[in-house]
Every structure is written in C-alpha cells, then in structure tokens.
C-alpha cells in the first residue's frame, strides 16, 4: 500500500501536478475568496476581475511566445507606457487612425527588439532592457513627463472600448479574440510548433532546418504589438495615459506566464496556460482586496506565489546553474 502511494505521489509530482497545478490553484482561489466574501461573485466585481485579467492577458500574449523560445522581453511595460501616452494624445482627433498607429508602433518596436536580439547576437534581456530604455524616454518626452488626459472621452474608439456586447465589455472580448487567434496559430500551424522546437533545443531545431531567427523576430514583434495594445486598454479603463502607467506590466507579464506554468527555460507551456495565469493573478489581487488584505502586504503574497509557480513549472533538476 505504502509502495503504491509512493509511486502515485511520484507520478503526480512528475507530470500531472505540474500540468494541472495552475488550474487547481485557480479553482481553490475562487472557492476560498467566494466563501470568504460572496460579494466576489457579484456581476460588477466579476467585470472588475475580468477587466484586470484582460489587461494582464494582453500584456502576456507576446511575452508567452518569447518565453516559450527561452528568451525574455523586458520592454513590455515601457512600450505600454509610451503607447498609453501616444494613444491618449491622439485618439480624440484621429479615432481609429490612432489605434492603427499604436499597432504599427508596437510592431516597429517589437521588430527592433527582435532585430537587435538576433542580428547583433545580444542576450534578449539585455537587448530589450536597452530598447525599453528608449521607449521609456520617448514616453516622457512625448508626454512632457505628465499625465495626458483623453480630451474627448466620447469619441468613437473610446466609446467602442467602453461598450458592452452581450454583457461583456468590448475590451475584454477583443483581448480574448486575439488570444484565441494566437492560440490557434500556436497549436495548429507549423510556425506555432516551431516555437516549441526552438525553445526545446536551438541547435537541434537549426539542424532540422528551422529558421530560428525568423521565428524569434516574429515572437518579439508580436510581443511589441500586444504590449502596445496593453497601453490602449489602460487608457480605455482610466481615460488617460501617463509615462509610467504601463511600467509594472513588464514584471506582471512575466509573472502571469510563469504562474500559468510556462517554463522560463523554454519549450514547455503556451498561451492556454497563460490564460489561467492571468486569471490567477487577477483574482489574487482582487481577492486580496475583497478579503481585506492590507494593500501594503499584498505584494508579499504575489511574490510568494510567483516563486512557488516557478518552482513547480521549471524542471530544475536539468539546470546545473542559473545565471
């Protein structure tokens, strides 16, 4: 009997726990917070949670692919900040043109990241730290280092993002649509599969004929775009942009990806798990408010959860040393 238990526990720790732990944690959190304070399930609070989750999810979409490749994008937050400022400045006059411009800026910035990383052969965290500095400075220069309020809150783009469609705010719906499209690419196309091959072993992928740099550049470009759109979502929730509004989203996006169970070492995980990670993170911060955890203590809990998640998701026995 003891033998069977031991074997069972071994198998659980081996694979299944790793794969299902985030889902179990999510369900447990919903249960605990819901029982503690049933107000959690009220429609308005749920919308608050989901809005928060959609922001986190948007910031983490491209980051998931980047991390799946074994790289990291540290410019996400600065890109979001810069785009929040630009979008807040332009949306009143340009309308949908401003949205298009933001997408193009995101693509251009992400492309820059990808090119610096692959062509100059610099580790991604240094490359994006450098470009992130550029985005940060631009955000301050463009905004004159101050908050930019949206002049015409009633313009069509802002109205669309604030509207609800079948009880679901449009901003949430758009994020989920983008997530679903990227998920389909990731799981069902050759390009998506190649993210896993590269993340598992770059030399093996290269020797099997995969154009590694192409896929890296694509992942970073998408990451730039989703970071830029995070800036738009931020403006749509608080009606202004500011040069440090998005900064926390660099670390948040990494935390979400890791909490979902994507390994920082690459090759394992994906966007499906990132959705779980975003929900966990959103419910964690909202739940702590609902339950009444002191605001100043909340980061301790978040930090502990991130460390735990990384512990579970990484195959640490395979890593002799971490740098």
């Amino acid at each position, binding site marked *: 009997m003891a033998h069977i238990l031991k074997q069972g526990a071994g198998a659980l720790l081996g694979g299944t726990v790793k794969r299902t732990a985030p889902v179990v944690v999510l369900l447990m959190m919903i249960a605990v917070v819901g029982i503690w304070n049933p107000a959690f399930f009220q429609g308005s609070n749920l919308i608050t949670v989901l809005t928060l989750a959609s922001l986190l999810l948007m910031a983490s979409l491209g980051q998931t692919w980047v991390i799946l490749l074994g790289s990291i994008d540290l410019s996400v937050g600065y890109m979001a900040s810069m785009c929040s400022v630009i979008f807040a400045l332009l949306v009143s006059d340009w309308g949908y043109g401003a949205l298009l411009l933001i997408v193009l800026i995101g693509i251009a910035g992400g492309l820059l990241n990808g090119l610096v990383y692959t062509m100059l052969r610099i580790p991604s965290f240094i490359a994006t730290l450098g470009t992130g500095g550029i985005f940060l400075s631009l955000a301050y220069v463009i905004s004159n280092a101050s908050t930019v309020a949206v002049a015409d809150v009633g313009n069509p783009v802002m109205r669309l993002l604030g509207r609800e469609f079948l009880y679901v705010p449009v901003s949430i719906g758009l994020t989920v649509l983008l997530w679903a499209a990227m998920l389909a690419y990731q799981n*069902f196309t*050759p390009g998506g*599969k190649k993210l896993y091959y590269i993340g*598992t072993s770059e030399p*093996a992928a290269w*020797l*099997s*004929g995969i154009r590694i740099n192409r896929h890296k550049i694509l992942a970073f470009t998408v990451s730039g775009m989703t970071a830029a759109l995070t800036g738009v979502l931020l403006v749509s929730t608080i009606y202004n942009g500011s040069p440090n509004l998005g900064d926390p989203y660099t670390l948040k996006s990494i935390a979400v990806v890791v909490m979902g169970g994507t390994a920082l070492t690459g*090759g394992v995980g994906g966007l499906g798990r990132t959705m779980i990670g975003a929900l966990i993170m959103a419910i964690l911060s909202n739940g702590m408010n609902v339950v009444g955890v002191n605001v100043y203590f909340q980061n301790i809990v978040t930090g502990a959860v991130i460390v735990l998640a990384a512990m579970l998701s990484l195959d640490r026995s395979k890593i002799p040393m971490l740098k």
Partner: protein
Amino acid sequence: MMKILVGYETPDGGEMLVGGKKVQFRSTREAMAYNIGMVYQDQALLPNLTVLQNLFLGYEHLFTRGGFIDHRKMKQTGREILDMMRLHCSLSDEVEALPLSTRELLEIGRLLWLSEISGRPPVIVLDEPTTVLDSNEIRQLFDIVRSIRDKAGIIFISHHLQEVLDLVDRVVVFRDGRDIASLPARDLTVAKIQEMMIGRELNTEYYLVDKQREPSERVVLEVKQLTVHGKFQDISFQLREGEIVSLVGLDGSGKEEVCRAIFGALKPDQGDVLLFGKRLNLKRPDLAIREGIGYVPQNRREEGAFQHLDIAANVTVTLLEKLAKLMFLPRKKGLQLAREWIEKLRVRASSPHMLIRQLSGGNQQKVILAKWLASDIKVLILDHPTRGIDVGAKEEIYRLLRNLADQGVAILMMCDSLEEDIGLSNRLLVLKDGRLTQEIDSPADRKPSVLEVIRAL
C-alpha cells in the same frame, strides 16, 4: 573511464579503492582530496588568467592571513613549482601567451604541489599529453615524468604506441569499452599491442556485408576543394547513388567538420558542393535539407533529439510544411506518420505521445533517423550514428543504412570503430590533419583489414 577516476562522472557500477579504502567521487574536487588529478588533452587552465592565478586556482585559502591572500608567500611557492618543473615562464604571464607544452607542465606541477601539501602520493592521469608537443618537448616531458615516478602514480593515455613502450611500466589495453589486457611493458612490442587493440577479425555477418551492393555510376554529391581554415583544406570527393562512404581519421583530423560544412552547418571558406551537378548554397542547414540532404549529429542529446517533445514531434519536425493544409496542421496525420515509423523502424515505444527522452539511446537514434527517412532524402550524413547504442539497436541501424543504400541514397558517415567503418562502407576516405590523404576501396568480397587502415591514418 578516466573521467570517473577523477570524479568528473559517476560510475553506474563497480567500486574504486584508494590506499585500500573504498571511495566514490561525486566531483573532481573530492577526487583531488585523494590527490587524483588529470591533465586533459584539451587544456583545463583558464587562458585569461596568469600563471600564478592558475596554479593556485581553488586553493587560495591555503595562503590566507587574516582572510586576505598573502601574495608574497603565494609567489614564493609558485616559483618553487616552476623551478621543479624546469619552466622559464614568469608567474605573471598570461597562460594564453604560453606554448601548449608549458601549460601542460604547469598542470602537472600544480597536481604535484597539491599532493605535496597533503602528504599523500598522487595519481596523475595524462590524457594524450604528447599530441600538442614537438619532439624536444616530449623528451622534456618524459624526463620530468621519469623524475617524479617515485613520488607519483601516473596513468599515461596515448595512441603513440612506441612512446608508450619507452616510458611506462605496465600497459592496459582497452577495446570497445572493456579492458582486455594488463601486461608489463617490457614483454610487449608495438605489433603485439596493435593486435590486442584490433581484436577479432571483421564480422561480415554483423555488418550485413552480403547486402552491400555496387553503387551505380551516377554521381549524387560532389565535393570540390572544400576548405574551412584551421579545420580542413582542399577536400574533394564524390558520392555515388547507393554508395556508403566512410570518413576515417584520428581525433582532430577534421572529418566531423567536413560533414557539417557539406550540410551547411559550418560555413566553408572555399570550395563547392554539387548535388546532381547543381551548386549548393552552404549558408544554412535548411537550404541543404531543402535539396535533400539529411544529417544525424553526433551529440544526440543536444543536437539530435528534442528532449522535451514527444516522438511524433521529433519525427515530423522536417515535414511540417508538407503536412500542413491551408497553413494548419492536421493533428491525426502527424500522429499516423509517427506510428508508421515507430512500426517500420521497430522503435520500442508504447505510443507516439511518449517523450523521446524516455527512450533508450538506440530507440532515440531510430526516431532521429525516421525524420530523415520520412522526408525523402538523396544524401544522408551520419556523425557517429551508433555511439552509446547497444548491440541490438546497432544492428538494426546497420540494416536501415543498407536499405537506404538499396534505395539509391548516398551515405557519408563516420563510425566509432574502424571495424564498423570497414564493414559498412563501399569506400573509405582517410583524413589526416585536415587533408584527404588516401582512398581505400572496401568492396564486399575484398574488405581491407583494420591494420591496413590504421597504417593509413
């Protein structure tokens, strides 16, 4: 084996006695505590540090006074070591700037010093120490080795049999990972050792020699004056349809690099590779793959297999674009293909969803071969395809190679043993110091002897 002795790797079984006491080393540091150390073939000193820093690397604490390093004492000890080894370099020289022979003697000096301070006789492993030395330096090294033989036990690894006989007291011969003889050197001759190293005569059945066929006249691959500076020069040869050709040569002869260059994984400085008369672009492996060249790398764990992925993913990696319909991959088709290959190659796996790292080495190699077999290749390059594989799986791989040749695929390979090279191939190309020096025919009815090939190396 020597790596286990010095604690670099841990053994799967057996035991080791030091001074009559059973020991097991989990690191080189633990082995050093027993004064067992190795001077590696490929230099273990840190090139960007000075002689002094290298000599006492990891043992600086022996020179501390109140937590700080006493440099004067350290330098004095350093000079003593240099004197003992009769070296004329300065302690502040950067190791990078020193000749290889000096570096080797420095390593030996370091090991001797370590044994002195612990008061235990050391065991020093010298791995092919003479390959980087000229004859004067070899003499110097041998003098020093002789002068310390009273103080130390020395294990000397070498392919140069004459120098072994000149120097050592006892010879242990290894073949295919087994020790087969341990004899006093004075009873031996070079010829006798060679005989023991080669062992049994060629087993024609094992290598399916009866299935060897004459290649057709049609040239598939032509290599013309291929050069990678510092690796190999002016390599030219042809591969014909259905032909198996082996590259043979000692370590460092450049044969692995030749293969990588043909596959586009190592950029050549000069020369061309032609496939059916068409010049290939050798910039990247994917270009070679598109033309129908496959490559099985030596490093199976890192370069051959995708360890975190399942068998299906490992088989289909080269076929993604072909399998996709309207840019989407039909799930079932990939799995079906993987199942087919699992069956065809008799991979011991319960399902295509099994992770490749759960398979044995031989079965992993079969999966890696499957990805090339499935993608319709004209040329297959194999870098030590049977390394670390059990005998049964080896035979199955030989059968696969024979079948491929029957289908007209041209095969370029290099094996772990000369027997394997001779047994499998139609022709052997001998590489020496990066140059093609000889071609030896190896037809089914007149296989050259191992000795014949060894002489050409």
